[in-house]
């Protein structure tokens, strides 16, 4: 008989290894007695083996990116004790601990659990942390209650106990049709729509970055709010059925949707819901056009955003390279309690927002933050650079993206008049093709690489991509050039200077400039 494809090792492990490890037992077990297969399955509990073999990373789950100060304080205390005084904010709006010893994993997990934060499904082939707009529940012009849906999904046992999906599954729920919620790069993207005073949801699916990026398509123009959970579950079920478990590089939902097309995928979902006797399916409307039309990001550099609720505001701070040292964290937490609303929100640009700040406290908060060395200026502009941990701690990375961050930040973000003259600009630096730092959809995306030296060895550097966006139908950034790390600063400066010189006027955004001149012309301009 011709050989038949068998399950890959990861797939076998998923069937054979219970992902709910007893980390107290693991703490006692000699490291050499933990199999590599078990080690890989730690991820299902949010535990990732770090590049440095004696240490682990732990990622918590914070649906919608929100934490109370009580929860945040616990994280800070645990980081002080077990994680070398540092927390990192991720691009999926949550926190990571690094440098955790095997013996301390359970202490962090249990410590966070005591304040209602889980690490279950932090990583692995599961439904990951559900994200949305950081402004949800507080920002202006909100149409739907995205936080309610996020909570519904985060608390749904059927979704949260999907421990053997073909690959990771990501959901975004937006409070309005704003690119801020990154709808187009999620497996499922929910956007509220209002018709005659009734809120329903537009359903996008099949987005995802990684080495081969796909932007989501619109599947349904209208899903009544009471059917959103059913569609979410059906999507996960469709993924379970149709995801390619054979080739891990092609296993995500994005490939399923791309190969089926939006219409057929929608039909698959409807059929699954019929099987499950979901009622009122005729109220779901298929997308008239699968091309998304997401509005541009509504915020543009504001440090303070008034909340529609009377007398309250959102105050935003930049967290350099997403790294929160214990003393800084304690200041943030204290200020959130004393001057804010006791709520902190982590953004997908790895920054922090104070929500529910009484308006009378805003000035005091800003000046205290300023005195403590926190920047509140520069959001969605050059200083607001996103970078992953890169080759400092990640096994997959090629380049030291935090270092690239600091090179650019120190050289370009310190010149306020320069970056203000540029206007809106998002630079994202990712250390490897996995694109955790979303370089594919940035104005300027840097992806780690190395280049062969003709006279021996190789040089760390970056491939530069330009013109990516998450609004309208979205756009994947296009390849411009390769540059060694040591030439990164002059290279980015050259790109920006070219833009400044060649743009129609100050109002032409970098992404619009890219679209207007095209990549070929851009390439020749910077040659």
């Amino acid at each position, binding site marked *: 008989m*011709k*050989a*038949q*494809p*068998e399950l890959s090792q990861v797939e076998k492990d998923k069937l054979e290894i219970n992902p709910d490890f007893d980390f107290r037992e693991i703490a006692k077990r000699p490291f050499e007695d933990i199999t590599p297969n078990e080690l890989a399955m730690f991820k299902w509990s949010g535990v990732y083996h770090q*590049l*440095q*073999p*004696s240490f682990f990373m732990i990622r918590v789950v914070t649906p919608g990116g929100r934490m109370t100060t009580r929860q945040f304080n616990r994280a800070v205390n645990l980081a002080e004790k077990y994680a*070398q*005084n540092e927390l990192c904010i991720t691009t999926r709006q949550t926190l990571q601990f690094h*440098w955790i*010893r095997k013996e*301390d994993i359970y202490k962090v997990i249990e410590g966070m659990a005591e304040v209602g934060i889980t690490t279950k499904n932090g990583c692995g082939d599961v439904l990951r942390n559900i994200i949305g707009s950081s402004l949800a529940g507080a920002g202006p012009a909100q149409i739907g209650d995205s936080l309610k849906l996020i909570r519904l999904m985060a608390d749904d046992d059927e979704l949260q106990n999907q421990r053997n999906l073909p690959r990771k599954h990501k959901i975004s729920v937006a409070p309005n049709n704003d690119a801020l919620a990154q709808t187009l790069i999620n497996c499922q993207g929910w956007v509220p729509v209002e018709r005659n005073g009734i809120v329903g949801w537009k359903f996008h699916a099949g987005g995802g970055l*990684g*080495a*081969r990026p796909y932007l989501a398509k619109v599947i349904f123009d209208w899903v009544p709010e009471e059917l959103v959970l059913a569609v979410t579950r059906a999507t996960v079920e469709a993924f379970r059925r149709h995801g390619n478990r054979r*080739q*891990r590089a092609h296993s995500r939902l994005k490939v399923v949707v791309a190969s089926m097309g939006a219409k057929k995928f929608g039909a698959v979902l409807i059929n699954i819901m019929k099987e499950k006797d979901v009622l009122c399916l005729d109220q779901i409307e298929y997308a008239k056009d699968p091309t998304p039309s997401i509005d541009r990001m509504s915020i543009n550099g504001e440090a303070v955003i008034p909340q529609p609720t009377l007398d309250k505001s959102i105050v935003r701070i930049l967290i350099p390279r997403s790294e929160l040292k214990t003393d800084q964290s304690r200041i943030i937490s204290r200020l959130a309690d004393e001057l804010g609303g006791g709520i902190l929100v982590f953004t997908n640009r790895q920054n922090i927002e104070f929500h529910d700040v009484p308006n009378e406290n805003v000035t005091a908060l800003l000046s205290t933050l300023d005195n403590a060395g926190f920047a509140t200026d520069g959001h969605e502009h050059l200083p607001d650079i996103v970078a992953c941990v*890169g*080759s*400092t701690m990640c096994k*997959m990375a*090629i*380049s*030291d993206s*935090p*270092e690239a961050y600091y090179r650019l930040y120190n050289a370009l973000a310190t010149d306020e008049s320069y970056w203000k003259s540029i206007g809106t600009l998002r630079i994202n630096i990712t250390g*490897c*093709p996995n694109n955790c730092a979303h370089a594919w959809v940035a104005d300027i995306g840097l*992806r780690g*690489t*190395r*280049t*062969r*030296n003709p006279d*021996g*060895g*190789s*040089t*760390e550097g970056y*491939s*530069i991509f330009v013109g990516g966006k998450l609004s309208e139908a979205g756009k994947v950034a296009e390849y*411009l*050039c*390769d*540059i*060694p*790390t*040591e*030439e*990164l*600063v*002059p*290279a980015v400066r*050259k*790109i920006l200077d070219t833009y400044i010189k060649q743009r129609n006027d100050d109002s032409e955004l970098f992404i619009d400039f890219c679209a207007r001149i095209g990549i070929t012309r851009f*390439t020749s301009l*910077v*040659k």
Partner: protein
Amino acid sequence: MKQQLIKAEKLINSGEYETAVAFLCRSGVPENTGVCELIALAYHKRKTTRGDVFSATVFAKRALEQGSSNPLMQQIIDASKRHDKQAAVSLAPQQYQLGGWNEHRKELEAPLPSCALSRLNGKTDHAKDFDWLDKNIPCQKACPAATDIPDYLAAIYEGRHEDAYLINLHDNVFPAVLGRVCARPCEAECRHGWDDLGDPVAICFSKRSSADFKQQNLVVLDKWFTPSGKNIAVVGSGVAGLAAARQLALLGHQVRVYEKHAIPGGMMNQGIPIFRLPREIIDREIEQITALGVEILCNTEIGKNLSLSSLIEQHSAVVLAAGTLRPNLLDLPGKNLEGISHGLDFLLEVNTTGSTTIGERVIVIGGGFTAMDCARTARRLGAATVHLEEDLSTITAPGSILRMPQGNVRVLYRRSVNEMLVTPGELEELEHEQIPMECMVSPVAFHGENGQVKSMQFVRTELGEPDSSGRRRPIAIAGSEFEIPVDTVLLATGQFPETDWIDDTIKADLLSEDGWLKSGADQITARDKIFAAGDFATGASSLIQAIGHAKQCVQAVDQFLTGQNRLKDYTQVKDVLGSDRIREMDAVALQKMPTIPLAQRDLPTEVDLGFNQETSIDEAQRCYQCHFKYEIDTDKCVYCDWCVKAKPRPECILKIKALNFDEEGRIVGWDIAETADEVNMIWINQEDCIRCGACVAACPVNAISIQKVSLVTEPIK
């Protein structure tokens, strides 16, 4: 704590950085200043990646924050900083030429010395490219006839048995014959049979299935050239003579083959038993040669009916392919006793007449193909006194081996099984047919009564240093002599070329005093117009060796006749999108050759039944398809290492500091990079590559190409 720090420092100083860090972490979260200093030191000393540099600074900073006065801590932090180059920069896209599996490569010279081949695509004839073929397609390299084995196995896998047969026919002339009795040097080299990779592919039996499942009509190849007007005589119609004749005919020459026996085929007919090689198989493949216009004159003995000198006069060239018909007889006491004969004579008689007279107790001496054939033939000829169980007697064929007493035929060999020149399956069949074999025993003398051999004396041996054949020399163990009663002794102890038939005048030019050709194994002899092919030149070898030798001989003949090299070898490189293999095929078990039951085993019935169509495909899918070349475009590669993480073998993908080349530009070695900055390229070591495709699946930037690389021989017109 102090002792722990001392121990950790020792580990660091001995280069065991990771162990040192693990040890330091064991007693608690690293927060003690001394512990942080040492972790910083460990990573600082290793410094193979940016991760090490970073780790060193994390712990150096912590140590300093806690009041460390170790000056190294600040040095570590300072050393971690890299600086910006502020010069004007040129922003150009990375250029690359090889590209990945989904890109087409142009027919250009290879841009880098590290490229596996001298050209990116198309046809080449550079030494580097032939070297690639030699090292990467071990089966084809091992085949003296250079059979394109991966290609025909691919054809079988796709159910194209017809094509598979044609590929074989082109390369080795006698696919159906060789598919049964080839010595299979290819299988010994098959990558699938390398250590820890399982069993080699059943290449030989697959060849047979290509013949079994094609349409059973004659396959006549197209000639490469129009008639040349040259006529050539070939002496001997064994595989060498016939292969030479076939090749000469394809080159447009008129060929006449002279055969002293009544039927053509040489060893195929005279030596190999019918139960291994049915005669209609031979006849059909010979017919495919005569269909090209080759004339075969049987019962025509050169030196008797016709002299070699007249042959030379009448023809443009003469190819001597007379085989090895002079038996090597053991020069031992009692050698002239009745009952002692050479195995070749014995086989010739049985194969020609269907019977011969042998005694009850038969001994075969030797450890090669002939010994196995003699023993298995003798087993089928045993005495009439048989005692069969009732239930067996009805189903057992009259001449079946089961009607013969067990143990009365045995094989004795002076070396061990390891030195035997047989294929593994043959030993299995010997055992299966209940023929005992005793190794490490050497004959000493024949003893007889009334001129008839009655017993043989042997001495036990041990193995000494290798002799000229490369096999370990047997050395007699003193005092270990023993005697075996015997009626018939068959000597399968080798044979030499018979040269008595050569005219004396020519003999002097052609032969050395020891009777061998002066030209040795060369195809060009010491005399103009005379060429030698097969065993006659090389000494007794295998059918496939003789065919390969004959093919080369024809190249020499044609060059002599036309003054030019009209057949040229090339390396053909073609882009492919994939190998059509899945990794699970590697785990498919070797398919067993089905055989007839012992009760039916007699002289004329073929033992091996052949694969059925389905098992032939099952077996063919096991082939790694070594003709596929997986190569990373080092300029497109982003050095992510993902292929390295996915690799199935320790040495198939390497992080290389430098490749080493010989003066022809061939890659002859490499230096492994120790640090990230030292890595000049991530390189597929194709000799260790098992063509699984895991790297292609893992590569995030499609930087790995797949190309099919084949040896092609083409006529130059």
